[in-house]
């Protein structure tokens, strides 16, 4: 039965019309992803109603292809302009942009594309083969476990705080505070909304992220006008993009680790690419021999985040298709699309609607392959951006930010909010306060708040519930280790174990 469905899906996906829509979806995804301010979720939300006229399998496949394409596309803007094209590429700016500044933009693209491709393939194959097995993981993540995921995520802030730890923690704390804006999830009381109903649903973190990352960069670009001589102009035709085997070899472990992190983060309901990229970056740094080089433009940093955010796509679809539980906010929109088509999301997707589901799964695999080739051409073209003057690029970034922040909720208030964050981000940069921790605080703060309250209601007020759940206990232990790892005492102990004589003498 399964083999039959698999074959049916394969044959269906190989129809010219389907391949074309998948290619179109991937291309739109690459384009939308590459535009700072425009995110995949937004593009899918806008384009989804247009696909209602298509056959469900075709329409949904196109959207999944768009999702996949956008995850790579996001890195293009992140590397070239230091403005993440999608929230999931926010961590790519940390090493991607410094690489471009060193004149290695093409190399960064090549690594990003290869990592995205491998991440996408691993997750597509996981979806194709072991999805029903992995889907069950999603069920194991209830409020208690999600709380621990959020706690573990918070420890990333410490490792992102290059330079001043105090500044990083402060930035993270402000992010957490901002996450408290909106209706209290337990009592329904509006908090810090000042009677403004546009704040009732909280601050959309995508809006904050666009403001914090892209607007300051646009202003910086304007500031450097006049001394652009130092800017590395790359010749798109001569430049080699794809990495050699030698270059790829040291990255392969990172790429595989990040892909697994991506798949699992994708499976966990409520966490998507925006979280996975930080987790992957953090783990790459943890296992790296030269931790200090992270943030200065090393290939590992780019490979880690880009493999992870593409792996999220397949990962997020696993619980979506096996159980009807969306693994990320983007797949939640996709599920809605299925419902509009009259397909009830649930365990019957794999059986009753096998025609649509298996077509979608194969479509994802083909979208990944198409992404690799179309991405190569697209990237070559996008290198021309380095030849364009900042006086043109900066206003374009601002315009795209306005469009992107407006389109999320069709709300002009969000545009103003985005500019507010832009100004804050600019001055944070001036006082050397990192903006990334604030975004993490915003992303995880809401999850932390909701899941903590829910857990304590479920346990009737007992905190021991967090250690009684095995998953939660492991995650919290990891979080504790992460914190200890960044303290001087731990470094001392590690050194002592590894090299006892040196310390003694």
């Amino acid at each position, binding site marked *: 039965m399964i083999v039959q469905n698999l074959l049916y899906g394969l044959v269906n996906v190989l129809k010219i019309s389907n391949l074309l829509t998948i290619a179109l979806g991937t291309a739109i995804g690459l384009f939308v992803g590459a535009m700072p301010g425009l995110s995949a979720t937004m593009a899918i*939300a806008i384009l*989804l*109603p247009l696909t*209602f006229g298509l056959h469900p399998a075709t329409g949904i496949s196109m959207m999944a292809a768009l999702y996949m394409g956008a995850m790579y596309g996001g890195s293009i803007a992140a590397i070239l302009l230091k403005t993440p094209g999608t929230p999931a590429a926010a961590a790519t700016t940390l090493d991607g942009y410094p690489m471009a500044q060193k004149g290695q933009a093409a190399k960064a693209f090549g690594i990003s594309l290869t990592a995205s491709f491998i991440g996408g393939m691993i997750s597509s194959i996981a979806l194709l083969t072991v999805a029903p097995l992995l889907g069950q993981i*999603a*069920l*194991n993540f*209830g*409020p208690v476990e999600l709380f621990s995921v959020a706690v573990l995520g918070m420890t990333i802030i410490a490792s992102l705080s290059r330079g001043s730890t105090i500044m990083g923690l402060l930035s993270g704390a402000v992010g957490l505070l901002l996450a408290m804006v909106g*209706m*209290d*999830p*337990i*009592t*329904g*009381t*509006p908090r810090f*909304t000042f009677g403004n*109903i*546009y704040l*009732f*649903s909280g601050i959309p973190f995508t809006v904050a992220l666009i403001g914090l990352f892209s607007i300051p960069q*646009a*202003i910086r670009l*304007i500031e450097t*006008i*006049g001394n652009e001589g130092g800017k590395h102009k790359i010749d798109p035709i001569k430049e080699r993009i794809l990495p050699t085997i030698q270059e790829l070899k040291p990255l392969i472990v990172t790429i595989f680790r990040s892909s697994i992190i991506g798949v699992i983060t994708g499976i966990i*309901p409520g966490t998507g690419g925006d979280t996975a990229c930080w987790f992957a970056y953090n783990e790459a740094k943890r296992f790296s021999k030269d931790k200090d080089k992270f943030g200065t433009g090393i290939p590992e940093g780019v490979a880690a985040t880009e493999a992870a955010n593409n792996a999220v796509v397949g990962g997020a679809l696993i619980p979506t298709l096996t*159980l*009807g*539980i*969306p693994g990320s906010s983007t797949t939640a*929109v*996709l599920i*809605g*699309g299925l*419902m*509009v088509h*009259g397909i*009830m999301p*649930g*365990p*019957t997707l794999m059986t009753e609607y096998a025609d649509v589901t298996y077509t979608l799964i194969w479509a994802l695999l083909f979208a990944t392959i198409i992404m690799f080739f179309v991405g190569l051409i697209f990237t070559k073209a996008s290198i021309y951006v380095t030849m364009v003057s900042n*006086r043109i690029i*900066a*206003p374009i970034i*601002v*315009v795209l930010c*306005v469009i992107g922040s407006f389109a999320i*909720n*069709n*709300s*002009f208030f969000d*545009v103003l909010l985005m*500019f507010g964050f832009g100004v804050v981000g600019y001055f944070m940069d001036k006082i050397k306060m990192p903006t990334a921790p604030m975004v993490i605080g915003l992303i995880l703060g809401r999850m932390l708040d*909701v899941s903590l309250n*829910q857990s304590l*209601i*479920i346990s*009737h007020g007992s905190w021991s519930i967090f250690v009684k759940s095995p998953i939660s206990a492991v995650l919290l232990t990891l979080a504790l280790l992460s914190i200890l790892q960044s303290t001087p005492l731990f470094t001392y102990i590690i050194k002592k174990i590894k090299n006892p004589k040196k310390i003694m003498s």
Partner: protein
Amino acid sequence: MLRKFLLIALVLLLVLSVVACSQKTEELAKPEQTEQKQEQQTPDYPTKPIKVLIGFKPGGGSDALAQLCEPFLEKILGVTFINQYIPGATGAIAWTQLAHEAKNDGYTISVTNTPMLMTNYIMNEEITYNIKDFEPLANIVTDPGIIVVSKNSKFKDINDFLEYAKNNPGQVTVGNSGVGGDDFFTTLIVEKATGIEFEMVPFQGDGPSWQAAMAGKIDASFNNLGITYPQIKAGNLRALALFAEERTPMLPDVPTLKELGYNVVSGSSRGFSAPKGIPDKAREALIKAIEDMSKDSEFNKAAAERAMNIDIKLGEEYRKYLEEQEKVFIEIWNEIKDQYKK
């Protein structure tokens, strides 16, 4: 240096012009409104596309209803429908716009769902619309409330569940879709009717609530039939009781609370409303179109495929329904609000 300054000025100008533009369109809207009044005298309706404000994300329940009805309504009325998604504040942003900003010319309507339509302003004074600002056109679907538990749950039927809950007050954890949602109020109504005290766990939507019940993280989830039906059918969830007037043919073995002697009928409803004071012509045309649609067997088939429970209430009947519901929610909220408004 001067050039740099000029460029920054340019960017600022750009931003300001965007702001200005948005205000301009609002100003422009006013004279148009007077034009519309003249149009009201003209007998033809509809002559141009009808805008549908949707207060939730594309692909949500409101969108699903709009996408279900629109092809049929387009055929009957001969004009297209344009959906505008304005998610936020559980629909309140869209409904505030419908009440205060939308032109009442019959060309802007909205998907209105209970209980959020009423509980939004009952629970928050900051929300400035109420149902008197609307012209209810018709209710289309009602998704009855349901109690579901995991397939591995010790509760085999509703009697098990209620008895255990009665003997262990405040110990049974039940999920709902969020404070102010239908499941939240349903739980309160059940508590009142049975005298049982539950431990209520609010989730961010129906999905996380049934998922937590399915995984056994909570004892039960108060949810909706249409949403949980695929999982019930697959055997992952067990339905204990339905909050409907009578049993559903989808789950003939699941009793209603009414049968057990508790008068609890509850669920979430979705329909269409227009701003108050739309031309009679438009109102009648829209209601007539919905009535015709409800008699179309194709429409009923499409609804059944989506596990949508058709519950047509036209015009005045819908208005009365909304008013009655409002009364019920105000009463419940007044009783419990001290617990929530700290």
